[in-house]
């Protein structure tokens, strides 16, 4: 942790980092560039992400916000012909180091996707999947984990009598909370959310938003969203991406009430995007 703090201080001179780092950084990104073939999708990204905070990433379609999120757990590398340069330090270690296994990273950093993607298994097996592949076999412990995770994702009461049913038999909003519970089951440190409510109805969206507020007590959450009201409602800090660059990164209330950059203001007030 010490190295992380020191590096954070050095980095404080960067224009996009905050003047004061109150909480420890979970992720610090330095000079990250990413190409899809010849398409320069992320340009010189510098970003510090705080512990136990909700960080929202906003920006118009194609600005690189989902790409950045997927870079944080290296899922972006599943796309053929991706090249990166620069560094992302997670808890003080560069995730691009060849000694850092992607599986190890993804065990610490969970992800919730845009469309609910439960496994075609029972609800119970969905939640138990993560603990099981990481070697937890004891039935009693698994039972406890499943209940705790489902409670954590605020869906226990809805599914407790149908744990053995296929997860595709429940509604989309419930499926998304199952996916969140599945992520919680291995007690990650960070949760990445890629527009987790864009495929859901308003009530399910509200439930997920409330859940995010509760989860930030224990987890650091990074959420990509198209919905600016959502970013304003649930996040502590907001990063505005445009054409692969971070235009502005600050406290959410500052971004929304008093943005420093004209382009941020234009986007937030709905003048483009």
């Amino acid at each position, binding site marked *: 942790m010490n190295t992380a703090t020191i590096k954070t201080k050095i980095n404080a001179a960067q224009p996009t980092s905050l003047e004061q780092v109150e909480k420890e950084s979970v992720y610090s990104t330095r000079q990250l560039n990413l190409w899809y073939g010849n398409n320069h999708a992320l340009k010189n990204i510098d970003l510090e992400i705080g512990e136990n905070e909700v960080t929202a990433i906003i920006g118009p379609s194609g600005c690189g916000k989902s790409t950045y999120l997927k870079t944080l*757990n290296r*899922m972006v590398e*599943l796309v053929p012909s991706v090249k990166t340069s620069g560094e992302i330090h997670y808890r003080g270690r560069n995730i691009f180091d060849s000694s850092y296994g*992607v*599986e*190890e*990273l*993804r*065990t*610490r950093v*969970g*992800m919730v*996707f845009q*469309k609910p*993607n*439960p*496994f*075609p*298994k029972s609800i119970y097996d969905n939640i138990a*999947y*993560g603990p*099981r*592949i*990481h070697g937890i076999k004891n039935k009693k412990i698994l039972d406890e984990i499943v209940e705790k995770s489902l409670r954590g994702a605020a869906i226990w009461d809805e599914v407790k009598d149908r744990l053995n049913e*296929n997860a*595709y038999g429940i509604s989309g909003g419930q499926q998304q909370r199952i*996916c969140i519970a*599945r*992520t919680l089951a*291995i007690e990650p440190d960070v949760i990445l959310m890629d527009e987790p409510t864009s495929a859901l109805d308003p009530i399910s969206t509200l439930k997920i938003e409330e859940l995010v507020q509760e989860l930030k007590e224990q987890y650091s959450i990074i959420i990509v969203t198209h919905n600016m009201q959502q970013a304003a409602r649930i996040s502590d800090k907001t990063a505005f991406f445009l054409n692969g660059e971070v235009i502005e990164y600050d406290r959410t209330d500052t971004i929304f009430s008093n943005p420093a950059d004209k382009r941020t203001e234009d986007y937030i007030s709905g003048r483009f995007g």
Partner: protein
Amino acid sequence: MRTSVQELIAKSKDKKSKKIIEKLIPVLLFLIASVSVLTTIGIVLTLIIETVTFFTRVPLSEFILGTTWLPFANSGAQFGIWPLIVGTLKITGIAIVVAVPIGISAAIYLSEYASDNVRRVVKPVLEVLAGVPTIVYGFFALTFVTPVLQSFFPEIKIFNAISPGIVVGIMIIPMIASLSEDAMSSVPKSIRDGALAMGSTKFEVAWKITVPAALSGIIASVVLGLSRAIGETMIVSLAAGSTPKFDGDFTGSIQTMTAYIVQVSKGDAGYGTTIYYSIYAVGFTLFLFTMAMNILAGYMSKRFREEY
């Protein structure tokens, strides 16, 4: 005077010939479609009638319970089906032991690990393997696999169950690999991503997510392979011998149900003899086996379906 389009349409609707053709087409299509159904019914009927004739000469109990198959004996011919069933099961068993692990491993490799370039080369090669005539496989078993096996295990005879069993297995590998690969490739990428994002390794995703999700397709491919192995004729006729035996010996000559039918068909058993009718009874038994396989496949794939 110009006629409007609507009027033209109304006029052509009035034409009588067109109306008649419209009515005839479904009837015609129905008749064409019935050909395949009627053929099937015809085959089954012939099979049943001749089988019934066979059972007027040989008691059903002897056929089902008997463990000696001696159709060519001058006096006291015996028709107990079990030696032929055992022969078939030996071949099928070896074939499945060879084909299932190799076929499914190949499918996992192709769908989860192989790059597009590798897949572009390997899949057509597999399909070529599926197109090799079975008579070639038969010679391959007799003139290559058997001598190789004999050099390791001298107790193996020239006609045996192991070599044709292995070669039947090789024959059905492409079918199992190709159909399983199709089933696994159609598992949505989002489900894999979900597992990868939890820190699963590639193999954990393949074995715990993709294979279970594609299990109904994989089982269907195995059962399909199984019915081909049961019905396989050429390879066993050439390389397995013609000695119906009711024992657990794999190293010597055996006879399968299909090989018996070939033996009688190409010999000179006259029309109307008991031996002539016996091939229908054996054929009917074979038919029951493959039908049972198909029903089993349907049940299994429903039972193991993971819906997505």
